[in-house]
């Protein structure tokens, strides 16, 4: 009520106008690059080369999309990306919540040493080469397993969920145990249903991380075309678009020819279409999960 009665002073009006203008400009800067690529992706590629495409296609064409969707690698990449994301999210949720539950029980004898072993790993990292050697020695190079097994548990997420579990009233858990429920039943029927907002946040973060990851494919599976992923394929296109940018005609033709689309499209336009294909799934989903990730992040920011 008070706020409605605020005085409409000159100073207030000026501030609000400036602030609103600034925020609108900022929002424009945030969305423009994607809108521009959207326009480019729907514009005839040879026309795009003439420049001047900003927010709307000049000569509408679906050619870029048909070429991208006909690339030999795209189905493997799409299926791998989806399966990889689903497996990573499921294994993460199952393992992280089990571990977090055990570590949230004060009576658990090994709670402290296990927590310490996990927390320490947040502060050091053996490094790229020793990790690569480990994957090689475990025989994980060139396998699908390397996509989810090393990422199965994130210490940070364990701590976030554990913190949340600790806030659940002890009496709830005690009474379930009185009624004869074992730890697994307490976890699945009492604790986990109460953790759904936090679990949703973590599922979103893990899903985004997995969907966007390029480095694991690059480092471990780059000579295994059957295990390619969308970011990896996009990077290949990006690389050829950049070469084309430097060496206009020849390289662009070569890259286009490689995708079987010489003379009808260019790497830059293909890249725009590919960018849309990989980004749209996540961009459609995140606004609906906003209230979850805001609360999830706030819990994470609180010290254990």
């Amino acid at each position, binding site marked *: 009520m008070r706020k409605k009665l605020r005085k409409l002073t000159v*100073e207030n009006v000026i501030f609000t106008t400036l602030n609103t203008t600034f925020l609108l400009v900022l929002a424009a800067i945030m969305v423009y690059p994607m809108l521009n690529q959207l326009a480019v992706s729907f514009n005839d590629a040879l026309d795009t080369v003439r420049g001047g495409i900003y927010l709307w296609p000049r000569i509408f064409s679906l050619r870029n999309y048909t070429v991208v969707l006909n690339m030999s690698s795209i189905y493997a990449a799409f299926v791998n990306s989806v399966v990889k994301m689903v497996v990573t999210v499921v294994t993460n949720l199952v393992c992280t919540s089990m571990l977090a539950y055990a570590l949230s029980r004060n009576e658990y004898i090994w709670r402290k040493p296990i927590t310490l072993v996990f927390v320490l790993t947040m502060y050091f990292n053996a490094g*790229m080469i020793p990790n690569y050697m480990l994957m090689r020695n475990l025989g994980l190079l060139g396998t699908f397993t390397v996509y989810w097994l090393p990422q199965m548990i994130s210490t940070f997420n364990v701590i976030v969920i554990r913190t949340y579990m600790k806030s659940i009233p002890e009496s709830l858990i005690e009474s379930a145990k009185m009624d004869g429920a074992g730890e697994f039943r307490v976890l699945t029927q009492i604790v986990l249903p109460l953790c759904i907002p936090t679990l949703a946040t973590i599922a979103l973060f893990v899903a985004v991380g997995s969907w966007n990851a390029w480095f694991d494919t690059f480092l471990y599976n780059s000579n295994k075309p059957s295990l390619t992923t969308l970011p990896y394929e996009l990077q290949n296109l*990006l690389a050829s678009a950049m070469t084309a*940018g430097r060496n206009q005609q020849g390289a662009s033709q070569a890259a286009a020819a490689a995708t079987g689309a010489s003379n009808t499209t260019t790497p830059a336009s293909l890249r725009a279409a590919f960018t849309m294909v990989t980004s749209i799934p996540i961009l459609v989903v995140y606004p609906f999960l906003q209230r979850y990730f805001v609360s999830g992040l706030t819990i994470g920011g609180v010290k254990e």
Partner: protein
Amino acid sequence: MQKSKKSLWTLIKSQWALIVMSVPFLLYRILFSYVPLTGWTMAFQNYKPQIRNMWDQQWVGFDNFENLISGVTSNQFWRDFRNTLGQSVLTLILGYVCAIVLSLLLNEVKNVPFKRIIQNITYMPHFLSWIVVTGLVSTMLALPTSGGIINVVLMKLGFISEPVLFLNDASKFWGIVAGSHLWKELGWNTIIYLAAMTAIDPTLYEAAEMDGANRYHKMWHITLPSIRPTIVILLIMSTGYLLESGFEIQYFLGRGVNAKWAETIDIFVLRYGISQSQYHLATVAGILKTGISVIVVGFVNFIAGRLGSDKLI
């Protein structure tokens, strides 16, 4: 007190379910995070990948460290070290200041739907992958004919008379890295500050208004001091990432002409380790990186403790 009476064995028996839920993951963590540390022995060897047994390698003491710190590859290593540190410090400062300013401005917006929409739009880039972001960045920075809107705007505003090839100008690379991070994470980084701001007691503002405080007084004397603990703890946490200026953006946008200011330690590791199979040099670089960041975190943690703020560990 009951605990001490029970023997260890009965405790283990009564807690078998908790043990089943945690010990496998303990072993998992040890395998994936601690076992690779044995790879650090490579740093003291003239490592040959074809020799499988670690002990059959030729041991060279600290030769590899010397090589990197003051020897043949030192020029390149320190150059990459400088780039890593420079890029991340610039990214950090720019990111912090802008996120706090934007949170203050968003906090002043009283129209809730408008605020929601702006927030949702600014979160969007966080969900894009670095590959997509670098693609966007290189397009926006390109020549006007290739969709380089930044050149177009700068020329229209009269700041430059002819297009600039930003990515070919090595001296601009740090700025491009910091700017890309800013674009991607600015909105996202405001979430935690805005959450902290909603927890501020509104009577503080009312009391200040009674005393004749204007909008800027309230921002400066109430809002900012109230979120100070959040700012400090986030700043401390981010020092852990001081040498993690990233890998993907430099790898995707780096090219011959700007390598001098683009290459970071991670690129160095990749080049010597994976591409040239000089595992020992790459491992030394990785160890130095981890070592330095552990020291930095420890130091900052100590200072934070001294200043009476929340410690991290």
